[in-house]
């Protein structure tokens, strides 16, 4: 028994696929001048060695290593994240490009002895009792790729440690991920302890069992349905949006 499946399903992803390949779309966005063009292409391809080689040539040619971070590496990464946001490329491409970009940044820092100022600082953690950290790792990588400094507290992080880190680092945003219903209850404790300390920063929460209904039970909570919401939320905070506006923008249900 077999069928023609065309009447019972639609593969919308195929229907929506662009005529251009991702590589063609990226090429249209690269800077026109060298070595920026080659370095950006190497970031897109996730080729760490080629990124370093391009940076070496640029520095030999007189470029300021620290300036290369903002002027070239971040430009290349933005092409990648923009195409990801448009649904043209997939997460593994972003992760590999981020690896290449971060290696490039380290190289530039070594060469220049200084580092550019990040857009902001974010503290990331996985809820106490929960060891599932792939979601947090994706969030951290996307934030770094967008130019934010990430303080990654790791997984199964006690509430006390989260509070201490926030006090020490004074981040613009805290993120928390959890897979299970009973571990995500720690988010509420984090929220209450932050408020007791008079700290009112957005607390982005997401992951497996976490849902908007739960997150809206506590004042600082902003529900992040997708890992890709994290840098968008950070950008929104930088643009001056407060808790109420963040909830309005990111709470979809």
């Amino acid at each position, binding site marked *: 028994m*077999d069928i023609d499946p065309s009447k019972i399903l639609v593969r*919308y992803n195929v229907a929506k*696929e662009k005529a251009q390949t991702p590589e063609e779309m990226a090429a249209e966005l690269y800077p026109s001048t060298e070595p920026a063009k080659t370095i950006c292409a190497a970031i897109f391809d996730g080729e760490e060695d080629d990124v370093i080689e391009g940076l070496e040539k640029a520095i030999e040619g007189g470029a300021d290593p620290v300036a290369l971070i903002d002027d070239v590496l971040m430009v290349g990464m933005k092409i990648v994240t923009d195409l990801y946001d448009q649904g043209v490329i997939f997460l*593994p491409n972003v992760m590999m490009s981020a690896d290449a970009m971060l290696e490039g940044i380290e190289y530039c820092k070594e060469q220049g002895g200084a580092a550019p100022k990040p857009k902001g600082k974010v503290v990331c953690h996985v809820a106490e009792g*929960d060891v599932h*950290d792939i979601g947090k*790792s994706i969030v951290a990588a996307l934030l770094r790729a967008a130019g934010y400094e990430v303080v990654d507290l790791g997984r199964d992080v006690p509430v006390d440690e989260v509070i201490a880190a926030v006090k020490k680092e004074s981040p613009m945003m805290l993120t928390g991920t959890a897979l299970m*219903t*009973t571990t995500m209850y720690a988010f509420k404790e984090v929220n209450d302890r932050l408020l007791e300390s008079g700290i009112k920063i957005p607390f982005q929460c997401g992951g497996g*069992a976490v849902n908007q209904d739960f997150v809206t039970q506590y004042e600082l909570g902003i529900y992040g349905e997708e890992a890709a919401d994290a840098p968008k939320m950070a950008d929104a905070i930088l643009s001056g949006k407060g808790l109420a506006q963040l909830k309005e923008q990111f709470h979809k249900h």
Partner: protein
Amino acid sequence: MVKRYTSLAYKNADDMIFGKSVYPVKAELGLEVGAGYVTGEVNYAPRPEAGVSKEKLVSEYRRLTTDIMARAVQVGFPGISLETEHVEQMTNNPDWGGEVAHVQKTIMEEYHEEYGIKTALRHTPGDVRENRDLLALIGPKYDVLMESFEAVADAGADFLSIETMGGKEVLDYAILRNDIPGLVYAIGCLGSIDMTMIWEDIRKIADKKGRIAAGDTDCSQANTAMFIAGGLLDKNLAHTIAIIARAISAPRTLAGYEAGAQGPGKDCGYENTIVKAITGCPIAQEGKTSTCAHSDVMGNLVMQCCDLWSNESVEYHGEFGGTSVQCWSESLNYDAAMLNVATETGNAKMLRDILVLSDKYRDPQGYVLAYDNAYKVAEAIAKDGDNLYLRSKNAAIACCDLLTSADPKKLVMSKFEINALNDAKAALDAMTDEESTFMSDSMEKYKAEVAVFRPEDNYKF
């Protein structure tokens, strides 16, 4: 040394059907799994605030168990299976899990005695073998885990299960980088090594306590891949990569049976159809009736060979139709009733094929897991069944070959999926046939690239 499977339990794919397995298992209160009928297996999670104390958790499970049993009797179902997946507090404090199992089994016995309803209780301790930063598969946490199994077995759990984490430290790195050799190493090799160790010990406990070592699943890895892949418009992972990870998960799950598991396999193991073809053991599955927990693209298809039909997990709370566990257990058992009528009227294969065809072409994942294709993956695994590496690689290659030879007018894949598939096949073709070479090269590579990978501490190579 465990004996590896090198042949299939079924002579041909068409013999595989829901409700019937070659080697059924029987629980204490009369429920048989794989003996010719399908039963609903309801699964649940306590509300967030219930985890704060043992008393609150036990009370939560007492109430939800009573709810489920009452609904099953009210609607007239002949049997029901319950699965308690531990929250971490219950495994880390074995007496908590034991107390919950005892309370649940007592309620189930009361209903069995009063109404004759057949029931079974599965307990699934959480894989707590981790330190704050690293997997700690061998050591004190392992001992706690075994104590948890002892406690729930003592307290009356019929089926003992777990979702092990072996290999996950490498998988989490590899899956986000389209690293196919990394998937083979993480799932097929590291995962199988861990499975072999843990299931020999679970089987010993089950035998000692008169319980059934049920089964494991590659939830921590293949399901991670499936969840990241998401739906048709998600852009996080190619669905072709997700199904390759799934194909590799079958030999991993198989390792549990080789070390002593007897089924029913765990519900979220979408690889279970492949595994059933090889072992002949009964399986639980989940699909359209687990949308309370997650979405997938094969809601009907996975029902094809199930012996238990599960809802994956639902938080315990109120719905219009009763509590959530009542609603979902009712839905599950109506599904089971439909399947059982098909069996009773001689239409089982017809219904199975309708279920399969409703999803077979929806996605590369469903296509490979359709029982006829799953059987081909099973054959590829058994061909080199005594070699953990080769059988995993074979599974991945068989998966790629099935997709590339599919009718492109029926299985319509995006360019991205096809490119990812071609890249994966090229990576597989470039891999060695020598297990020792692969293992030593992989250990060196991932020790260098994955900071949390500590093979010497975690795997008995």
